[in-house]
């Protein structure tokens, strides 16, 4: 894991960069090719944070690459800006600002919509460069005469004007780029970005402002693109207009996929393969323009069969050879949940609210209509501090709709929801979670590509850091109180021994507990559980009921459940919904005797 060996990757990168000029020329790489690989590699680091880590596949990165490149080149060639490095940094900032604006538009949607929008945006920039702005960008001629950098040290000036000195310059920035990127992916923000890739819905539900983090990833990618674009101009002594083409964006995507997304080094490896093959096919095999066809076919095969790129393939191979795959674990039963006085969580960051005496949660006249269908009608509902409330009702009674409105996943057509006396109607899920109201889902919503501990870390991070925080360079293990929070949650759901197991390897019952654990890790004062016993074996049910008994200490719980025995045993008060309206409310005993309830469940037989 990234957790240990903090400086190993950095040291190896430095060693590789120093060794490259000694080794690669023997393999047929020219210095210019090596420098171009570094530019692509740096461009790709940012893109990998966006695509590999956050899961946002953009086909418009050329727009930002070109922006940074042309701003830097314009400063240097037309305005006589004195410092190359200064111009590169200005170009980077310009690209980041443009990236922020573009991101605001593109990130209104995700998935394929995002891909389509970025394609369109990329094309717009290309046309803008060629037409409206051709006076500044040189149109199809580009901007020639970009100077080489030099560094004035006072006593002497270093000029980076030969192939290998330029290599030193490029390699230095690549190294800076990779060190920063490693810090970012190991920071709390990096963990949250991966969580967004895995399960954006849950990442928001545990209290993160996922839009803000996605925008952050987009801006980071833009900054890398902008700086790399500037380096391209420096490398070629000329800023080419084709930096803006769709082909540039496409090549970046393909190189990243070839090398392996989500590795940071993938784009570098991909660029090496790409540029080497293109040189080899064109000059050695004399294939002329056909080289792109060959590369296209290779790429399709790679996507089909080597899903995680060259780096992923090498890792698998390495694991196979060294047999480092762990032997299958003996099925060890998870720790039973005993009646226990649990280690309470560390002091929560947000425990500032003054003691509140009224209802923890109150719904007033809650109504939800879907076109003609009225799913919930004028429901009034109150839950007192520390109560364990059950909500039951036959299928189609409107329980799910009601629950979704309470957790702010769905906006009511009319009515208000008050949490600790505060109106939360229409608030977004992440904000509500930060106030202390969260839910566990009927269908598991986990971060499936991570370990159990990493899952809980993501939830606990929201509790520790709030909806949005830009601690990009802070190490994950330096977040105060995070460890205590995670350990306490692990103990509470009885999964301490399984903490470092990947979610995919957990048994169903364990996943259900983790599901509840994710909600608990955000230290809610009010927890809503949507069918916590769904799909469980009788033994697992018993354990989970015990778990619910344990976690209710200091919390208010609302449980929707079909398992009547469990609800009647657990809850102090029960609310019955039927056909969208509140049918009855009372203690389990009262509900059991209620004729209306019997009629609703048994269709009037019992009431007769």
């Amino acid at each position, binding site marked *: 894991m990234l957790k240990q060996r903090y400086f190993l990757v950095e040291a190896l990168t430095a060693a590789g960069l120093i060794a490259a000029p000694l080794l690669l020329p023997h393999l047929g790489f020219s210095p210019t090719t090596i420098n171009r690989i570094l530019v692509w590699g740096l461009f790709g680091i940012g893109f990998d944070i966006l695509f590999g880590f956050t899961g946002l596949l953009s086909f418009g990165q050329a727009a930002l690459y070109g922006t940074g490149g042309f701003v830097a080149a314009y400063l240097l060639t037309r305005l006589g800006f004195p410092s190359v490095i200064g111009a590169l940094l200005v170009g980077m900032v310009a690209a980041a600002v443009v990236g922020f604006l573009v991101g605001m538009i593109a990130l209104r949607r995700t998935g*394929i919509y995002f891909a389509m929008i970025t394609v*369109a945006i990329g094309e717009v920039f290309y046309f*803008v460069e060629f037409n409206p702005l051709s006076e500044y960008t040189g149109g199809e001629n580009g901007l020639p005469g970009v100077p080489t950098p030099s560094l004035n040290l006072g006593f002497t000036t270093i000029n980076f004007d030969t192939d290998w000195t330029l290599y030193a310059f490029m390699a230095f920035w690549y190294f800076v780029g990779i060190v920063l990127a490693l810090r970012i992916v190991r920071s709390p923000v990096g963990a949250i970005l991966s969580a967004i890739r895995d399960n954006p819905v849950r990442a928001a539900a545990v209290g993160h402002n996922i839009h803000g983090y996605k925008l952050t990833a987009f801006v980071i990618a833009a900054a890398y693109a902008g700086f790399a674009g500037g380096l391209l101009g420096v490398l070629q002594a000329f800023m080419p207009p084709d930096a803006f083409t769709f082909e540039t964006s*496409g090549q970046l995507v393909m190189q990243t996929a070839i090398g392996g997304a989500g590795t940071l080094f993938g784009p570098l490896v991909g660029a090496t393969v790409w540029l080497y093959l293109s040189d080899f096919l064109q000059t050695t095999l004399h294939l002329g323009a056909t080289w*792109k066809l060959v590369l296209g076919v290779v790429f399709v095969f790679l996507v089909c069969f080597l899903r995680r790129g060259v780096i992923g393939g090498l890792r698998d191979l390495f694991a196979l050879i060294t047999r480092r795959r762990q032997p299958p674990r003996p099925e060890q039963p998870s720790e039973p949940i005993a009646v226990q006085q649990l280690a309470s969580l560390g002091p929560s960051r947000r425990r500032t609210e003054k003691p509140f005496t009224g209802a923890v949660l109150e719904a007033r006249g809650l109504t939800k209509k879907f076109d003609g269908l009225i799913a919930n009608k004028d429901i009034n509902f109150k839950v007192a501090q520390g109560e364990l409330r059950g909500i039951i009702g036959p299928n189609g009674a409107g329980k799910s709709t009601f629950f979704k409105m309470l957790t702010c996943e769905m906006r009511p057509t009319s009515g208000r929801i008050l949490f600790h006396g505060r109106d939360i109607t229409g608030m977004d899920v992440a904000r509500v979670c930060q106030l202390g109201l969260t839910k566990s889902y009927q269908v598991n919503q986990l971060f499936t590509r991570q370990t159990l501990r990493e899952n809980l870390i993501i939830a606990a991070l929201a509790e520790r850091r709030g909806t949005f925080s830009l601690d990009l360079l802070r190490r994950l293990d330096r977040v105060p109180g995070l460890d205590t929070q995670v350990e306490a949650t692990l103990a509470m759901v009885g999964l301490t021994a399984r903490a470092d197991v990947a979610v995919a390897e957990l048994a169903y019952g364990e996943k259900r507990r983790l599901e509840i654990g994710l909600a608990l890790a955000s230290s809610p004062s009010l927890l809503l559980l949507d069918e916590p016993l769904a799909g469980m074996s009788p033994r697992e049910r018993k354990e989970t009921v015990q778990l619910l008994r344990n976690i209710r200490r200091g919390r208010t719980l609302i449980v929707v459940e079909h398992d009547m025995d469990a609800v009647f045993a657990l809850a102090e008060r029960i609310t019955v919904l039927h056909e969208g309206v509140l049918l009855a409310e009372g203690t389990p005993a009262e509900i059991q005797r209620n004729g209306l309830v019997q009629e609703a469940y048994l269709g009037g037989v019992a009431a007769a």
Partner: protein
Amino acid sequence: MINWPLFVSQLFNGLVLGALLALISSGLTIIYGTLGVLNLAHGAMFMLGGYAGWLAYTYTNSFIIAVIAGSLFVMLVGVLMERVIIRHFYSRPHEDQLLVTFGLGIVFVETVRFFFGSLSKLVPAPPALVGITPLGFMFYPTYRLALLGIVVVALIILYLVLYRTRIGMIVRAGIEDSGMVDALGIDVYRVFMLVFGIGAMAAGFAGIINAPVVSIAPDVGEAILVQTFVVVVIGGVGSFPGAVLGGLIAGEIISLTSMFNPGYSYVMLFVAMTLVLVLRPYGLLGTAGRE
């Protein structure tokens, strides 16, 4: 001062382009709606239609045969593509689907370049449709007028297939919930293959009938793909009426902006797309929940 005759003729050009974009976009959108795959090789399908038609034309000198050959060839390519490759990507993440169709698009373009070179090819319009037709208020190239008619007919046929046939009903049900269709005992995979073929054919057909207007080259599909995306974002992904509406809007924007400065046509297209994204994030006729 606006030059009115030019304005009207550009309005017409916009209509023709819009109808064409509507046809291509509906192909893209029904594939996405049913299969959940965004085909980044859709622009290449447009290009392939043009080339297949051009090849048929050079052997037969018949425009009709060229259109039929172009459409059927692309349909075949679509069906094969679905069978051999896309089928294995349904269960894989969206990103992988994007990557593989993007790669396939490059393979198609470069294969064509390999065989036919980079120079553009022209398929002449059938003799009966050459020349200029007086419309009373202006003169308009006959073939473009015919093109408008042909595309409208094609769109109506597509509409009828989608909304009035059994297979269309299955496709529309598949757009809503393909899992449910599967559960009802319908062989979704066969439907998927067919939809992919029809969707690709829409682009291929557009490619060949547009060839007399704009000459074909290996990379002709790239610009079309971008415009198609804008159309779909404006209209709403997975919506056939949305594709038609979005197509017409995009066509008019491109055409009317070109009257003042062609360089800004993409900028205006982008402004329109942004407005839609801000005001109606799911597209003019799209529905929520389809990502």
